[in-house]
């Protein structure tokens, strides 16, 4: 961890949001320690994006609240940087000017440095329209990173990218997180992505936290590893069975049946404990003879 300031800690106290009488989030209690990487997964419409918008201060809760480093959040959360799915870059500004949007003083050299970090410093002068989808998300990442945020809110940032670019970007995000030590909240519908990146995975179901998985797998994580597949299957199964009462989902994952029991290794825990191994040594056990863990974890 190169930076001295720790990541922002978050505390959600009975956080409630209703839209037109319909509850989207009902009394969510959650504590996230500084520097943790938390993923929020769930079906579409489960309230995960709303949760992120409340954390960013773009929307106000109907009841309860958010404590940021112990201070109640009242307006836009300036500790936080959001990375949106669509990047939200300004097409009339160059790549570098997008990165430095709203900054004062001499930020250009820092902007170039951040762009070098995401591998795009050679495109600093280009217009956004010239970049591919993956490159745009890299710019969005650089733009979020330039202020050295202590809290990164990732709203399905890789949802619109192709599979290969997505894996590349996941590695980039993981490395940046390891270097910078910011707190990350990732909203995604891709369970594999959550397992790859997060050390804590929350399953959101109808506005409540249905399960709280801890993920102590060694980084960097590999999709084929048995632990990885098992956790993915378990999370996926939680989501599918809980949605099952209402709308009878199709069973997409057959091998998820072996991981139904809740006491299967990972128990839900109420508050964030310090995550285990965050070392960057390469895991030295390649998957041999394991069923490929490449089950499609797309839930939409």
């Amino acid at each position, binding site marked *: 961890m190169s930076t001295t300031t720790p990541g922002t800690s978050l505390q959600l106290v009975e956080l409630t949001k209703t839209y037109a009488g319909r509850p989207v989030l009902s009394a969510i209690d959650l504590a996230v320690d500084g520097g943790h990487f938390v993923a929020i997964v769930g079906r579409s419409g489960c309230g995960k994006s709303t949760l992120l918008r409340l954390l*960013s201060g*773009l929307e106000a809760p109907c009841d309860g609240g958010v404590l940021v480093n112990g201070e109640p959040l009242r307006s*836009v*959360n*300036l500790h*936080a*940087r*959001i990375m*949106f799915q*669509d990047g*939200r870059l*300004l*097409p*009339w*500004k160059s790549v570098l000017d997008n990165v430095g*949007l*709203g900054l004062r003083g001499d930020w250009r050299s820092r902007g170039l440095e951040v762009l070098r970090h995401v591998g795009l410093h050679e495109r600093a002068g280009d*217009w*956004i*329209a010239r970049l591919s989808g993956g490159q745009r998300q890299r710019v969005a990442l650089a*733009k979020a990173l330039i202020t050295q945020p202590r809290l990164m809110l990732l709203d399905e940032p890789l949802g619109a990218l192709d599979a290969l670019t997505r894996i590349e970007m996941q590695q980039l995000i993981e490395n940046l997180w390891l270097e910078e030590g910011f707190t990350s909240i990732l909203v995604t519908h891709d369970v594999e992505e959550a397992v790859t990146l997060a050390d804590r995975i929350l399953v959101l179901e109808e506005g409540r936290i249905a399960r709280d998985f801890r993920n102590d797998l060694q980084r960097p994580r590999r999709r084929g590893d048995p632990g990885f597949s098992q956790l993915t299957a378990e999370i996926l199964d939680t989501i599918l069975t809980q949605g099952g009462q209402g709308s009878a989902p199709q069973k997409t994952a057959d091998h998820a049946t072996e991981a139904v029991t809740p006491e299967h290794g990972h128990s839900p825990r109420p508050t964030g404990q310090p995550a285990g191994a965050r070392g960057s040594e390469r895991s030295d056990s390649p998957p041999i003879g394991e069923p490929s863990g490449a089950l499609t974890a797309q839930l939409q």
Partner: protein
Amino acid sequence: MARFQPFQLNPRLKRSLIPWLVPLLLLVLWQLLASRGVIPTRILPAPSAIALAAINMGRSGELWGHLSISAGRAGVGFLIGASLGLLFGLINGLMPRAELLLDSSFQMLRNIPPLAMIPLVILWFGIGEEARVFLVSVGVFFPVYLNTFHGIRSIDPGLIEMGKVYGLSPWQIVTNIVLPGATPSILVGVRFSLGIAWIILIVGEQIAANSGIGYMAMNAREFMQTDIIVFSIILYALLGKLSDSMARGLEHRLLPWHPNFQRTAKAVPSKPAIS
């Protein structure tokens, strides 16, 4: 030396020549018909006669006088109308309360053709400069207003939200996000209103004026100078084309980021010269 290659033109030159092919053919046809007496001079003089009239008027300085007066009127009227249109477009686009107050009034006024106001305008201003400048301003106002308003309102709200999250002040959001985002639409309004400015000016000058190209044409009618009349009409066409080109130039200048205006020259490599 090169072989004789009759139509091996530079592709760029070719592209800029092709649009003139049809007008040129028509001109030749017209000249032929007129010089053989198929079209009487009273109805339509030959292009050569019109060119001659143009040269004479240019020499005597009469042409430049009328031309600069007309251009001045169009320019001043456009500046006033477009500035007001931009101003109210911005105000109403950015402030829903102002929109509530003003927009329906503008929509009512918009449906009055500016030319229908000529009798009233003459009573107000006489046939002085103010009358024509006023008419042009009114005509120019609405396209600029509507397009500015529309441009602001159709900005992706996600971008504005992004600006808020990144800690931009309301003023920074306007200058960094709203205005540049509305510029393409504003320029459409400008281009549209330039055309309207000329149309209104033509009619205005023909009805109540003692100078300008419209007056030049009406005056020529008194003396049955069809060549000058036709020349004035051609002048309007050329001036309209000129102002449109200027508006396009403005688009290229102000929207270098827009995919529609990015230089395509690199995409079309010119053929290497064969020697």
